[in-house]
């Protein structure tokens, strides 16, 4: 599916995982054209749409950028009107509306993750056709196929921040190791009530597995 995207696509691996007190959202950093040319080795797929809400993009880069730009505006407007930080669910819904109403033209999927006062850390998936789903953790992009087994086996609810970081880093490294359109560095953002922490792990510092 990802390989049929015309133009630059984020054949990619993205994920978001809740832990005890926050959520970690992560991605690789490769953008490619048709899987044969890497047009960027260091693209950041983690877009901040509000103070404590991030989203990560998969699919057509042009579509994703257009949608997130529109969503960012709508969310900040909504936040000003409501005079309070937006709910993560609200941000995810904005993305969903855009994806669902323009489903014929768009080819982009999103994961929204963040923290809000009402429900704490949350993760939402907006799939290609505009479905919205809330999950404790989720993986997406072309590279995610290879880590379904790993994620199912290793995820535990209520992990600590360190365990969650390890889980997310390992998952990204494994997917980048098997998917040729995922690669580069691993971007990770930790979102908690206190704030937002952005980490970049270069390719050579990623965990290595038995055959590497």
């Amino acid at each position, binding site marked *: *599916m990802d390989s049929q995207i015309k133009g630059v696509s984020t054949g990619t691996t993205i994920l978001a995982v809740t832990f005890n007190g926050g959520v970690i959202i992560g991605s690789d950093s490769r953008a490619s054209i048709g899987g044969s040319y890497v047009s960027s080795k260091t693209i950041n797929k983690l877009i901040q749409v509000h103070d404590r809400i991030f989203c990560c993009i998969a699919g057509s880069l042009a579509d994703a950028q257009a949608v997130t730009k529109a969503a960012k505006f709508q969310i900040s407007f909504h936040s000003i009107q409501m005079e309070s930080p937006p709910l993560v669910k609200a941000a995810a819904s904005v993305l969903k509306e855009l994806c669902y109403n323009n489903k014929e033209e768009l080819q982009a999927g999103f994961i929204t993750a963040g923290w809000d006062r009402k429900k704490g850390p949350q993760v939402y998936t907006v*799939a290609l056709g505009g479905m919205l789903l809330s999950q404790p953790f989720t993986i997406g992009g072309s590279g995610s196929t290879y*880590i*379904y087994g790993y994620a199912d*086996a290793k995820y535990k609810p209520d992990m600590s921040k360190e365990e969650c970081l390890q889980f997310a880093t390992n*998952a990204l490294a*494994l997917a980048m*190791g098997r998917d040729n359109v995922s690669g580069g560095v691993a971007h990770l953002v930790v979102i908690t009530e206190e704030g937002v922490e952005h980490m970049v792990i270069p390719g050579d510092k990623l965990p290595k597995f*038995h055959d590497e």
Partner: protein
Amino acid sequence: MAVYMSASHSENAFNTHDFVPEWAHEEVSTGTTILAVEFDGGVVIGADSRTTTGSYIANRVTDKLTPIHDHIFCCRSGSAADTQAVADAVTYQLGFHSIELDEPPLVQTAANLFKQMCYRYREELMAGIIVAGWDKRRGGQVYTVPMGGMIVRQPVSVGGSGSSYIYGFMDSNYKPGMTKEECLHFCTQALALAMERDGSSGGVARLAAITEEGLERLVVLGNQLPKFSNA
């Protein structure tokens, strides 16, 4: 991660597809999960048990672990007809070769026989095969012969449609130097994870351990498989 409901094939009032079920047109395939792991002293092989024709499960208790010789097995994925035919042919060839040699055959020989057939007839065949076994010269060995007819020896190999989902699990959980029990546990978990995610894999998990002593077969029923979700 796309999710959509499939629409009917056409808008015609009398769609000929309505009178004959869709699976009657589909080829029988072992959309599947197969894997094999080497350990010191032998190999452990495993497979799910689902054979599908389209969306109909033609056989829910298939045995995809096929003996080729006393200590050599193959795990079949792809078209059920193609893999059965190729396996039968190789079984014959290997049996003949073994009698000529007056010795048990090498796993490498069996694997190369598979490769020759899969490569020569690569356009006609849809067969992804993992050959695994034990011989006196090199102990436990796993050779993978994917579609197209390449051959490569690997300490651990997964194949079939369900294999995509467990590459990450395999890369992170396999360690060289595992014991037979650890390999069995690893294989059971990997199969359970793949069967959970792949629609074309399911049923029971069949496992076999091949060592110098002989063969040991196991079946893990669906409700006894390790569970990884709250569902």
